[in-house]
Structures are given as C-alpha cells and as structure tokens.
C-alpha cells in the first residue's frame, strides 16, 4: 500500500498496479478533463465515527488527488486538490450518472464484497490486500469516467473530484433520486416490448453471455489458483527434510542443504505469482460488471421503447373511441358501451362533451407519441454510439489483459526454470 511519501514515489509503485487498460491513447482521445488534470486515488485509511443512527462504525476512506497536467516538471507537481471519500460516495456518484445518462454504459465500481476468492485470499472487507485492490479499482473507475466522452464533462463528477464537503447535498439537490426511484421501479418490472431494436436485443444477449462466461472463468481460475498454491507450498517440505537429512550425511550434506534452500524459494515464489494473477482477475471482474452496465442500457432502451409503444397504444385506442362515438358503432368492447346499452344511451350533449374531451386527449396523445418517439430515437442514437465505443474499449482492454496473462505465465515459467536449474546444480553436488 503506498505510504505517505511524495507523489512521484507513490505513482511509481502504483504504476505497477495501474490497470493495464488505461493506456495513453485513451487520454489522447481526449476528454478535455483528462487534458487538464491527473486523477488518482492515492491512499486508503481506516476511520471510525458515528453513523446515521449514532452507532460507532469503522470504515475506509480513500484519498482522491488531482494535479494539473500542464505543469512541466513532474517532480514538483503541486496537488490541486485532495479529498477523502468513502466507498458509499462513489456509489452515489455512479447512481447519479446512471440516472442522468441512461444511454451511457457507465463504468462499474470495484466489487462491494470480495467474490471468487480462493482460500488464501481474504473475503474480509477490512483486509489490507482487499482494501488495496479496491483502491486501484476506484482509481480505475474515476479514470474511466474521466475518459468517457460524455460523462467526463459532468459538473457533479467534477465537483466529486474537487469538493469534499457539501458534495452530497449538491447531488441530492439535482433531484436525481426521484427520477432514480421511478426508473428503477420501471426497470425492475417485467414488461414485454413488441418491437425492440434488434441490435439492442442482441447486445443484451451478449451481455448475458459475457457475464456468464466471465463468472465461470473467474470461478475456475480461483480454484486452479488454490490448487497451484498447494503444489508450490508442499515443495517447502522438501526444504525442511533435505535440511534435516543433510545433518546426518557427510558428503551429501552441502548439496542437500543448498538444494533445500531452493525448494524453500520455490515454495515462497507462489505468493507473488498469485498476487499478480489477482490483478488479471480484477481486470476480468471489471468487464463482468461492465456486462451488467451494458445490459442495463439495453433494458433502458426496452423501457423507452415500451413507453413509446404504450403511448401509441393509448393513442390508437383513444382514436378508436372517437370513431365509435362519432359513428355510433361499437367495435371494441368497452365498459362504457355496455353500461350505456344497459342503462340507456347518452344525450347528444353528453356525447358532444365526450368527443371534445377525446379530441383534447388525442391531441395530447399525439404530442406524447411524438415526444416519446423522439426520446426513443435519441436514446437509440446516443446509446448505440456509446455501445460502439464500449465495444472498441472492451476488445482493446481484454486483448491487453490476455497478453498480460501470457506475460505472467512466462514470468512464472522463467522463475521455475531458474529455481530448478539452481536446485539441479545443488543436487549434482550431492
């Protein structure tokens, strides 16, 4: 975990852990925000305090630092702003973005609770390794938002980076929560769309598949990591036994003893290997959660499409009612029609009034259909742009991840070759 040293040092130690996916090319593609400032989540700290119900709790806060980009010498970069935020505030920011930009594939947050852990990894949220990986994930999230063509220019996001106190109030003042509640309800409801855009249907299906396959991969990988750990660690027993055996031998003693040391080294090497692999797993996890964001956008499309279809349906039925009223024919079953049949016809004045009301409603209805149509088109257009952008980003990032996985495997093999060659030399001296 980076300590309180100067920014350059902590950036260097973080460079190793920086998500592979954020390459310079993304910055150049250029959001104006990233051109102006460097963003990082430099540290994590434990705090205790009283919560809303006045109970003592322990939580972690993360230090967000921003620096101006144009300062020439990196060593003396003054911090523009630095503020501490909790995970819950990141969540609030994300929810705000979700509601405000429904067409955007909003970058995901790192997982709330550790999942897909293999036995040595802690599932405890307070565990320093988990906190550290979360710090990296939060930084990644901010950089993703900052490099998004639309999200990066959001005022609330900017304030998140620059305002410590009062940011929460500002967000609530936007009133996004009201929209959030109703939209959330609508999204969770099951509804059938008659004519969804085929591309979105396919995207949703892809999102499902991606989520399923990455979950499977993460599970399998975690189990394999567990087993690999066992293989390496058992070799540590060779170290111990060789050492004990060397004590009773004369000529073989030295060779055995030094071979034993190499076996210990071999056993110890697995810790670093698996830690690196955990970063690969984190990269996969990001896209696991991205898959969910993608599906959310598709669901939102369905919602707007559904609302349009509802409006059209409503308009059509109103038009039909007008026709029936005007011509006196009843084509569709309606309660009014039944009751009028049972209890007698209406007076011509009543009919006139009804027609007038219908006309108004139809006018309003047509307006609404027009609006919703436009909304739908707008949504489809901007969502599809963002989906295309997301596809490109995903293809690039995951390919990089696979490459980094290969590099990790190569590094592991090289270590193995070295250790066993060393051991072989020692065995030869036995």
């Amino acid at each position, binding site marked *: 975990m980076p300590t309180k040293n100067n920014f350059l040092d902590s950036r260097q130690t973080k460079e190793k852990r920086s998500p592979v996916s954020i390459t310079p090319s993304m910055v150049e593609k250029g959001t104006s925000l990233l051109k102006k400032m460097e963003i990082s989540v430099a540290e994590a700290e434990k705090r205790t305090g009283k919560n809303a119900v006045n109970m003592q709790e322990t939580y972690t806060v993360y230090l967000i630092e921003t620096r101006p980009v144009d300062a020439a010498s990196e060593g003396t970069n003054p911090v523009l702003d630095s503020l501490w935020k909790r995970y819950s505030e990141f969540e609030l920011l994300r929810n705000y973005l979700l509601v405000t930009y429904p067409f955007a594939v909003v970058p995901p947050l790192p997982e709330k609770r550790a999942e897909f852990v293999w036995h040595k990894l802690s599932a405890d949220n307070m565990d320093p390794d988990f906190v550290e990986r979360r710090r990296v994930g939060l930084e990644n999230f901010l950089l993703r938002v900052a490099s998004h063509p639309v999200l990066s220019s959001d005022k609330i996001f900017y304030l998140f980076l620059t305002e410590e106190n009062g940011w929460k109030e500002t967000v609530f003042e936007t009133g996004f929560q009201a929209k959030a509640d109703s939209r959330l309800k609508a999204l969770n409801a099951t509804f059938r769309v008659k004519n969804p855009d085929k591309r979105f249907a396919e995207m949703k299906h892809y999102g499902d598949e991606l989520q399923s*396959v990455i979950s499977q991969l993460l599970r399998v990988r975690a189990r394999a990591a567990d*087993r690999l750990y066992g293989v390496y660690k058992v070799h540590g027993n060779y170290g111990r036994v060789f050492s004990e*055996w060397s004590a009773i031998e004369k000529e*073989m003693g030295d060779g055995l003893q030094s071979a034993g040391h190499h076996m210990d080294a071999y056993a110890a090497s697995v810790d670093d290997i698996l830690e690196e692999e955990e970063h690969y797993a984190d990269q996969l996890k990001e896209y696991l959660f991205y898959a969910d964001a993608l599906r959310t956008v598709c669901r939102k499309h369905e919602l707007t499409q559904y609302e349009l279809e509802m409006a059209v349906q409503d308009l059509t039925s109103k038009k039909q009612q007008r026709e029936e009223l005007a011509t006196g024919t009843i084509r569709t079953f309606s309660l009014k029609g039944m009751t009028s049949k049972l209890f007698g016809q209406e007076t011509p004045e009543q009919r006139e009034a009804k027609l007038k009301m219908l006309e108004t409603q139809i006018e309003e209805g047509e307006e609404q259909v027009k609006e919703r149509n436009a909304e739908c088109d707008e949504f489809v257009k901007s969502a599809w742009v963002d989906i295309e952008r997301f596809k490109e980003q995903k*293809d690039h990032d995951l*390919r990089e991840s696979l*490459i980094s996985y290969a590099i990790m*495997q190569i590094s592991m*093999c090289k270590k193995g070759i070295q250790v*066993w060659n060393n051991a072989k030399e020692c065995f030869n001296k036995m």
Partner: protein
Amino acid sequence: MMSGSVVDNTVSSGNSSAAIPTDISGQILDLDEDDDLEVFSKDTTLTDGSSFNASMQTSPASMINQYKFEEDADTKDIFVTVDNPESHVTAIETYITYRVMTKTTRSEFDSSEFEVRRRYQDFLWLKGRLEEAHPTLIAHPLPEKFVVKGMVERFNEDFIETRRRALHRFLNKIAEHPIFSSSEDFKIFLTAASGELTSHKKQGPGFLSRMGDTVKAVAAAVRGVRNRPQEFTEMQEYVEAFSQKISSLDKVTQRIVREQKEYLEELKECGPTYALWSQSEEELAEPLKNVAGCVDRCCKETEEQVKNLSDHLIPVLHEYVLCADTLKAVLRRRDNIQADFEAKTEALATKKADRDTMRNDLDKAEDRLEWANNALKSDWTRWQKVMRTDLRSAFVDTAERNVSYYEKCLAVWESFLHSQRTDAEGNGKVDFS
C-alpha cells in the same frame, strides 16, 4: 497380455525382514582350502560350482581383501533385463512371469546369452538365498508383494509395470554387487530352465535343521547383544534417521503428485471456458481461442510432468524406504550373530561339561562374528556410495524434468505473445515498442 482373474498364492520361503535363521553358521566354515587361493584376484568367481551352498564364502581373512574391490563401470561384464510380463493360467492359480535376459562375458557361464522366465516367487527365493548366505550384506529390496494402500488391483497394468521395473533394478543391483553377483544361486536364477530351477530350489537346508537353528536364533535375539561396538551403534542411529528422512521424502513426493493432479483437474476446465467465450466474440475470438489452446497445451505438459514424478522419482524413493528396512534387518542379524557368540562365551565360562565341543562352537561363532562384521563394514561403504549415486541422479533427473516442463510451457505462451504481436502490428492497432 493379461488374461483372467488372478490370485497371488506366492508364499515366500525366504522373507527377508523376519529374523533370519542363522543356520548358515554351521555351513560357512565348510571351507575348501583351495578357495583361499582364488580370493586375491579381482575376479570374483569364488564359486566352486558344485554344492548349492557354494555361495557361502571363504575365510574371514580373505573376505577383507575381497571387499576392497572397487567397482568400475567399464568392466561391467554382465547385463540383465527384466521385461515382457505374461500371465499364466493353471488349474490352481493365475500368475505373471517376466522374461529375464542375460548377456555376459563371464567364463563361469556356459554361454553368453540366456533367456528365461521367472515369476515373483522366484525372485523372493533368490533374495532369501542371498541373505541366508550373506546375512550382513546389504541386498537391494524387492518390490512389495502387494500394494497395501489404495485399492490397487494386483494385476492391473500400472502395477505390473511398476513391479517389472523394480525387479529389473533388483537384478541389476545384484549383478553390480561384488559378492552377490558371483553367487551360484544367482547364476542358476539367470540361466536355469524352469524345471531345473524348481529342483534346485528343493535342495535347501532341511526344514528341520532350519527349525532348530531358528530356535537358536530367536533365543539369541531375545537375549540381545551386550557389547555392541560403537561403529555399529552409530550405523543404527544413522539408519533410524535415514529411514525417517527417506520416508518423509517419499510422502512429500506423493503429496506433490496428489496436489498436481488436483491442479490439473481445475486447469482442464480453463481452456474450454476460454473457448466458450470466444464463441460470443468477434475481434476477441482469435486471441481467446489462442489462449484456450495454450492452456490446453500446458495441461498436457502438466499431465506428463505428473507421470514423470510417479514413474521416476517415487519408485526410487520408495526403494530406499525399503532399503532402510533392509539395513535395519542386516544390523539385527549382525547383532544376533554377536549375541550368539556372547552366549557361547558365557556358556564356556560357566559350564563344566562338553568343554571341547563348546570351545569348538565358540571358535566358530567368533569367526562367524568377525566375518559378519567385516562383511557389513565393507558393504556399508559400498551401499552408501550406491545410495548417494542413486538418489543424486534421481533428484537431478527430477530437476531436469521440471526445467523441461517449464521450458515447454514458456514456449507455448511465448508463441501466443508472438502471434498477438504480429497480429497487432499488422493491424496497426497496438504499438509494442
């Protein structure tokens, strides 16, 4: 090659780990004076070819010179192989025989090539005879009669192959031993037709005489040795410790194999998952399929690595676990010989009657003890050298195989990187510089 079900009715007549009857005590000093003259040559053809106990050695004095014999690989003049297991079905039992082929330039052999078939029982008999003749020499262990742990069927292919290799090593170790290899029983084992061997086996010391001596031996063992020389006590301490260490190594290695097998099981699911993923992708399909292929190839290498450990390192470690038991038995037998000598010394001091016979017996016992001690001392040095060579080469071999395993996996992943590089640079997407 296998046919039918099997019942292994082998009853060993020469089980090495029980207290060995010291019935040879009467026979060792059946000296033929002429034999003394032959001992000083490097050629270890000491057998006079006539009696079945010709593998009994000559006087203790001559033995000392004998054991300074240095082994020289270049002068290896006998080559033995064990292969070609076949099953035989008779009315009463089913058993396996192995082909034993010998190629030799030794003059005491009638011919230079021999081919016979032997079953496990025959190997047991041979070992028993060698140990009877040389109670304090260290014979390489035979594979166990049947596998105790695990539900291994006694006659499945893996078991037979493992046993065959161990029998091969056993005969080669006997052939490399300066004393054992010139044993008449060994020669007969390698050359006699089945019928001949059977009749030869029947000519052993009589059952009753063996019984009598067994009783004497048990008595001596119960009495225990009083004044064991320090060097043999040190030997015993070493053997105790060695036995523990080698058993630990055996267990550790078996545990490694288990863990690797479990790792392999999980790894086998990774490749197909990547392949499944590639089906949902367009741009990513190729690298994902590639990765799937790499993971599958690494799986194959891991599988082979596991097999290597099981086939090469574990059998050697296991044999040295059994060696440790052999050493313990050898030390016990030596102790018994000394205990017998001590008992006879005491008897001479206390009893009044039969003094002449008792003096005679005591002299024989003294000679036997001196002979046993010298034999053990020399063979101990030889054994330690052989052990060192065997274990060194087993571990070096294991290290080499591990290096090779990692090298192969390295190549797999490097080829993936290479494919991505040429692909990317071709598409102008990624700059690897």
